């Protein structure tokens, strides 16, 4: 009887996965912030995530949780004299075989940045409404502060990191929602 229950549960899970909304891997280049999302910014990084883009910690392994691939874009003000507001924006997107794997990656984001805030006198921020579920962190000191919003949409995770001398969580959320809309639009 117990074996039957397990089999039924597994079938239900498979069935659930089969009907789960997904983002296809070929959409990755469209899942990060695009130049149109940041007028007056200049893009200084764009492409598939590579070794040099990997942070230390639980998200370093490119094959983590069956990851299908990842994309990254980086921006900074086109005007070199700008000193207020975001001075560097990093946008990431990663896709996984299932929403549950993406959840694991979002948890790994938390682990990664909890380490960062421990070492950088930062803090985890409260509820942030981006995507299906989200986390937010801030750290930094002096004239260099960072806000990170990481979230999940279906089988994808994404993050926006905003760095600058006079930035707020609103700067990060605004961009994160723009990017989240891209993930939502790509979900089928």
């Amino acid at each position, binding site marked *: 009887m117990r074996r039957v229950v397990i089999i039924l549960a597994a079938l239900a899970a498979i069935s659930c996965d089969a009907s789960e909304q997904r983002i296809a891997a070929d959409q990755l280049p469209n899942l990060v912030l695009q130049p149109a999302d940041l007028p007056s910014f200049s893009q200084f990084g764009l*492409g598939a995530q590579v070794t040099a883009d*990997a942070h230390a910690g639980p998200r370093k392994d490119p094959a983590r949780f069956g990851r299908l691939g990842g994309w990254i874009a980086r921006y900074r003000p*086109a005007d070199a004299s700008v000193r207020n507001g975001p001075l*560097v924006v990093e946008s990431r997107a990663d896709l996984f075989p299932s929403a549950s794997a993406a959840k694991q990656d979002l948890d790994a984001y938390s682990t990664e940045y909890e*380490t960062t805030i421990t070492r950088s006198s930062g803090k985890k921020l409260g509820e942030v409404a981006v995507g299906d579920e989200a986390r937010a962190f801030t750290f930094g000191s002096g004239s260099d502060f960072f806000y990170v919003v990481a979230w999940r949409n279906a089988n994808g995770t994404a993050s926006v990191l905003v*760095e600058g001398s006079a930035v707020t969580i609103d700067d990060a959320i605004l961009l994160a929602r723009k990017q989240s809309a891209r993930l939502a639009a790509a979900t089928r």
Partner: protein
Amino acid sequence: MPRRIWLARTLAAVFVATIVFSGGASITSAAEDDVVLDPKVIGDPDENGAPPSGTIDFRDVDAGNALTECPQAGSTDNQPKPLDQRAKDKVEQLSNGGNDVKTNQDYACFPQDETSIAINPTNPKNAIGGANDYRLGWGSSGFYATTDGGNHWYDGVKPFPTVAGVARDHIDGGGDPSIAFDRDGIAYYNDLHFMRENDESGIFVARSTNGGFTWSRPCVPAGTDAAAVCGGNGDVRRPGDGTVAYTRDNDNSVNGSVPAHDKNYMTTGPRPAGVMPTCFAPISKTPIAAGTAACPTSIIGVDRLYVTWTIFFQGTATINLSYSDDRAYSWSAPKVISGSAPFCAGGVTTNGCDSNQFSTPTVNPTTGALFVAFENFNTPDENQYLVVRSTDGGATFQGPFFVSTVFDVNYPRSGALRPDCTARGQGGRNVLTNSCFRVNSGGNVVVDRRGGDFADDLYLVFSDNRNGQRVSSNTDVFLFTSKDGGTTWIGPTRVNDDPSQQPTVAQGTRDCGRVSGRTCPATAQNFGNDQWFPWIDISYKGDLNVVFYDRRLDTASTAGEWPTSRAAPNGRPGNYLVWNFGAQCSITTTATVTATTTTIPAAARQCLGDEAAIVAVPTSSPNPASGATIPGGAQTVFPFQNFNVSDTPSNWDYTFRAGIFAGDYNNVAVGRDQNVWAFWTDARNGRSARQQSGRNPICEQSDVFSDQYSANGGGKVSNSATQGMDLYLVTPCPLEAQDKGAKEK
């Protein structure tokens, strides 16, 4: 990862020790120290083991095309010029002011970095340089040759190796250049090649018999020893020519499933007395005696060629050696030479020194003795430099011998502690204050060329941050010398003679922010300016010549291309723009110094600073206490004359890819005519890339430069080197340099 292994073993050992000794034995514990050391690992694996080098991190590079020329300061060639030359901006005009010569001749804006140079012993006007060269749109191995004493240079990209039986035309990425001549004037170009989409990699040596203008093409052979093949029909190459080591991938993905070859360097020298020349079978590497049909004496070279490199696999990073007696046609099977010692901990085998990087070989030209130096990471905290020695042509080795602790765990590091660098794309590497290009402590070792009483004398340089902190780097260059063939070492002698002060206990020591109880000052202190990437050579008359990159001439700047990196976290003014520096000191006397020597004789004290002493060999892996005074921080006597080699500043934020990579080493060579050739990379022709998108914008670029000076008369710091410094802090990309089909109207 080795450090994880070390930690696991340490924890296990502590656990066992606690059980064994808990019955009342008095235990000396870490708690008795003034502070408790946080292990290097703390959730940051990049802090721990030997870092990969060279171009591998950037195997994804797809550099864009510059349809119009980039700034060309330093060009001296007389070739035809492009039709649509730009007007020179002020930085280019200033950068043209000195006598530095740009050796790469491409008009495009692709970077060149990570330099090596050698001088032809049969023709002092012939020099050959090598560098990572991205002119093809991805990392390759560039060569730069002159036969007129450096006035003009010919350049190109060395032919890519082929793999027999594989349906493609070459092994893709290249880099980690090392150039050497044998005594007959045949030149050798040693480099790394790897595929961008999988783990295939190899170490190769190409040969040039015309002063570096054309090169042989290495061949990975297939078949059997008796019927080995190289290329297709009509391929005249000898199977295996130039292939030192090669590993094919087994699953066609970048996942470390097979050993990875990395960070090679080569040297040449006479075979020691009694060592007979040998060839090696192309597939099995079986030794073949010279004088046989398969190893005719006609292909035996005057010198034995040695290549050392790192093999990364399954958490280890061993130093390996291969040699060739037949002018690089065949190579011995790789041999692990990093060995084991009581001061190595955490290896796969007990006391195994299996986490290493930055190997450099040197051969005594009178005895044929071979010495190899490398940095070792089998340590609980600070790392260490080691040397091994062979007196039989690389058949057997003695050592490793302990040279020094290397204080490189307190560098600023991209990641949680320098998120500004992470945001710029730097992945978990050591960096410096005010910038994000990656750095390491590696240097090199060179043996005295004179023989006789000097035959056992060695000189080794590296740089570290013993005089700085994570929040304010102050990396310095140190010399260590041995007078007994590498067994015993004397040092440190600080080579750079600018002000440098070791952080005091009140200032948080070198370990502030890293070790419990060591608090960094609220405002970062200025302990001195950064010097890094040292390299040393010695003239045939005993003149030591060191080069290194140096920021001492920038004392007050605050502006920069990346403002958040200039100020983060608690930055300080100056210490931003970069010059290539030289330092000289002459050795005319010597005396043997061994571990039992009580006082260093005067004859052995030349070129030593007042803090230099005989280094005590540790009986276990060294772990200097935080707060201890480290030699090298209070030197008052500076035997090395310092001077700027490059005539202008350079902004390394413009080197390549948001300023996160400018190569991993620097170079210098001294010819038989007492002429010193410095060969370095700088970004005087790089510009801000704000108008351009993508990872590798065309206005971010570095070039490779050469300059020459006398082996004992390099001069002093020139006032003109700081001319127009403000212009270099932020230099816009000339719109004319952009693709005319894409630039904004």
